[in-house]
């Protein structure tokens, strides 16, 4: 569904992405992990067209996304921090997004909207909302238009446990609908029961891209978090060695 070839990006002298090759398919729930500054967010933003790659290509369903915009109809994006025009109400933000997407009301997926009970605070101004409520609005917007691809940047940060569970259930539902879901997250344990694939990034490179099963076998552990920790310690030693060379 998404083919990334030789993708590189630098901001000035800073190389953020280095020759990334990835192939992502529907039905996968991918956890994109890596230390801070490893290029996760830049990779996501490249797919979303928010960052223009320095070189390389991204194809979405076979079409190069460079200078394209219509493909984003098929992507739902939940940003890390949802900032909205401060004087608009929740209702107006929802209306605006509906206007942009032009999807008829009866085809909208309003499950999160109902479960988060946003209907009770439609008139609240965005500037009066807590971080958690903003995350709820962001999540609701990402899922509302039943996109083929969901890109969730730190989705559970700031959400209370109840909301986190609602969101997780929703993600699992969507995975079963053969959708491609990309999640970046630091809180690994949250993701254990969702993830089918892991992409580990460091210093702008994809260190590996494996299924959860493969990873567990390779590392000999059952828990995702332990597997990751194992990998990270290995990789760090490896990178030290490369420096010594």
């Amino acid at each position, binding site marked *: 569904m998404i083919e990334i070839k030789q993708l590189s990006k630098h901001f000035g002298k800073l190389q953020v992405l280095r020759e990334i090759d990835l192939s992502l398919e529907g039905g996968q729930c991918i956890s994109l992990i890596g230390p801070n500054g490893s290029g996760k967010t830049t990779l996501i933003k490249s797919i979303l067209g928010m960052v223009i790659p320095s070189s390389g290509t991204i194809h979405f369903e076979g079409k190069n996304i460079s200078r394209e915009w219509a493909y984003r109809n098929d992507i739902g994006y939940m940003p890390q921090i949802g900032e909205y025009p401060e004087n608009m109400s929740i209702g107006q933000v929802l209306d*605006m997004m509906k206007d942009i997407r032009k999807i008829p009301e009866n085809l909208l997926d309003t499950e999160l909207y109902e479960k988060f009970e946003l209907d009770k605070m439609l008139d609240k101004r965005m500037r009066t909302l807590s971080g958690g409520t903003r995350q709820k609005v962001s999540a609701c917007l990402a899922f509302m238009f039943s996109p083929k691809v969901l890109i969730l940047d730190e989705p559970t940060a700031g959400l209370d446990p109840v909301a986190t569970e609602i969101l997780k259930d929703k993600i699992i539902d969507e995975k079963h609908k053969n959708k491609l879901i990309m999640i970046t997250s630091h809180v690994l344990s949250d993701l254990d029961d969702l993830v089918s694939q892991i992409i580990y990034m460091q210093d702008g490179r994809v260190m590996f891209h494996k299924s959860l099963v493969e990873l567990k076998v390779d590392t000999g552990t059952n828990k995702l978090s332990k597997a990751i920790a194992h990998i990270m310690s290995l990789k760090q030693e490896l990178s030290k060695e490369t420096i010594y060379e």
Partner: protein
Amino acid sequence: MSKKIIKYVITDLLRNRTVLLYTLVLLALSLGVFLMEDNIDKGIASMLNIVLFVVPLVSIVFSTIYLYNSSEFIGLLVSQPLKRQSIWLSIAVGLGVMMAFAFFVGIGVPTLIFAYSASGLMLIVAGLLLSVIFVSLAMWTAVYIRDKSKGIGLAIILWLYFALIFDAILLFLLFQFADYPIENIMVAISMLNPIDISRILVLLEIDLSAMMGYTGAIFRDFFGTGGGMFVTLGVMLLWFAVPLWLSNRYFKKKDL
């Protein structure tokens, strides 16, 4: 451009406290001036200082801050199925319309009521143009400079330059080259500053009699004739279009 985004930008700005305050302050100032002053042109002359000083300052600084505060939201819009150009131009139109609207309510309407005259109309035209021109300059500032405080700093410097420093340079040139026939060159140089263009256009109405004198006549011959007026308005539109065009070109390639 996207009508929806324009609509939502305007909805947001209509409830913005700064915009409301700006409108009310302009309204209070113009009512104060016009109710105390019975000579229309004298009232216009007082209003001119506000239009040349306050309107550009608020337009550029407010718009710059608004753009920085909206940067996350602009990013979100870019992740939506929308063309970048239509997002950027829609925000420009929304901001421009609102700043022009605030000016029109605050100064335009009182001027039409209390000082309906050629000079009053010229003042309104100048104020509307300055509003959108300084929004356009703000778009340019905010897109090029990523850091908010540096961006606001540049906006203030740009305003200082157009409102004060430019005239100081002009004054210096005038003293330096007073012995040469520099009137035409001065007219050309004044075109490099939209605030000066506005000032001269209103000047030609309220100080018409003095402007009919020798030097004034040169300015009047240029600004007052149909062709000169056409060129002048053209230059004002360029002052709106060029920064916006540059900012849009940059925005299309910008990493958010």
